[in-house]
């Protein structure tokens, strides 16, 4: 799918900790294998038990809009044709306590509401440094 804010817009810069989230084509959240704690963003240590046995688990790919905001002032030249657009905080089903950032796509910017159920969709792009295929998570309303 083409990108909500344009195919030339800023891409995630890949790191070992964020590569699963931005490339898997599913919602990848870091869990602690020792205590079961889910955390985001991923880090090198479990924030609940300080364990180092961490792995990514595939979540169902559904969630809920915890907050949203319509952006009217473009802070990047590429966004001048895109405003107003909607930024959102989405809680991830299957990962207790975890919220992620994103946009709510495939709908009117004025229709997005707190509490709305959403499901993940993925924007395709290529990392210019490594050639890695990116599948950037986004969210669309569940009817």
């Amino acid at each position, binding site marked *: 799918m083409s990108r909500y804010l344009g195919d030339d817009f800023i891409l995630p*810069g890949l790191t070992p900790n964020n590569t699963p989230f931005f490339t898997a084509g599913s919602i990848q959240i870091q869990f602690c294998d020792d205590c079961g704690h889910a955390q985001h963003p991923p880090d090198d240590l479990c924030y609940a038990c300080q364990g180092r046995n961490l792995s990514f688990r595939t979540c169902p790919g559904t969630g809920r809009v915890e907050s949203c905001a319509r952006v009217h002032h473009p802070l990047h030249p590429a966004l001048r044709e895109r405003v107003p657009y909607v930024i959102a905080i989405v809680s991830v089903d299957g990962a207790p306590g975890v919220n992620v950032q994103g946009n709510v796509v495939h709908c009117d910017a004025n229709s997005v509401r707190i509490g709305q159920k959403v499901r993940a969709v993925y924007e395709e792009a290529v990392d210019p440094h490594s050639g890695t295929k990116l599948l950037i998570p986004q969210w669309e309303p569940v009817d």
Partner: protein
Amino acid sequence: MHGRAVVVGVGESAYYKHGGSPDTEFQLACTAIRNAADDAGLELRQLDGLISYMDNRNSPLRIADALGFEELRWSSTPWAGGGNNSSATMHLADAAVSGGHANYVVAFRALAQGQFQRLGSGAGLMAGTAPEGLSWGLPYGLMSPAQECALQTNRWMHDHGVSQEALASVSLACYANAQRNPRAVRYGRPLTREDYHASRWIVEPFHLFDCCMENDGAAALIITTPERAKDLPGKAVPIVATAQGKGPEIGLTTFQQRWFPGMYYENVGRILWERAGVKPADIDVLQMYENFTGPVVMALCEMGFCEPADVEAFVGDGRLEGPDAALPFNTSGGNIAEAYIHGLEMVVEAVRQVRGESTCQAKNVELSLAVGGPGYAPGSAVLFGPAI
């Protein structure tokens, strides 16, 4: 109460619209420090400590050399964030002088946004891939503090049934107070509630007038011990208590559920009230950093000034406006209407209130509070007590 450190001098440059300063940022910093030394009755060579914050560009070595300090005994800056640390400058200065590390410590902030880029412009983020740490937001066009605070504020307003009028009231109080202050960049430019609602959206729920300005200018304060202050001509303003910090597992701007929505000021308030032995109702005048109006109303609640259910009444009907307000608030006009010197100009105003020298002077001020920027951790606050 603590009071083992006192503010003996305050100084400012003129305040300009962003890009309007004829001076470089370094010249602005040196002007504010020289004015603070003159105000204190000190020679520049006597100063021996420097504190700033928020990725300060003006090296303490360059300043100490240029201003002729005989020696430098303390130089420090608090970690992390930005204007959230405006009051943490007093936290560090208090430690420096009450611990005997230095004698006359300067806290300063200077910015010339014509010389350097504007803070909120998003400039420098034009590359193809986001820097590490910013990848969670930038690809989604989530790229400014206004947007981050809007997401926090929208959810909080939704949860507590708070309307846009609460945000408007904060902005209107700042503008009303700035009309008494000839230093204010927005002096002579009164704002009505109709003007507020008619102004353009930046990011909902923030209109243009919900956002701090961008300015050029500098502010400085000089801190010493009460013993040394006895030899100086002016009033000394004691630092009664300071607090800086954060609660558990905040995750900064990653919006995790445990602290979403939140401004991270619950623990700053709790520590401050414990250390000072006072409560919010005891505060005579409040300067609270407005990055945006929403974070101000949220932080008022987190620090215990009121409950979310009561916040519209607490800030409404002019209850924050003017010297006779129920709670005199942002009496110089604050970041929204005086100048955005990243909140240090509001710490200066808090000192001025204790001295009785504000252009919007509250009556019988004994406890004057300055709170750093909400929404970013670690937060900070400083409480000043009766002048000696």
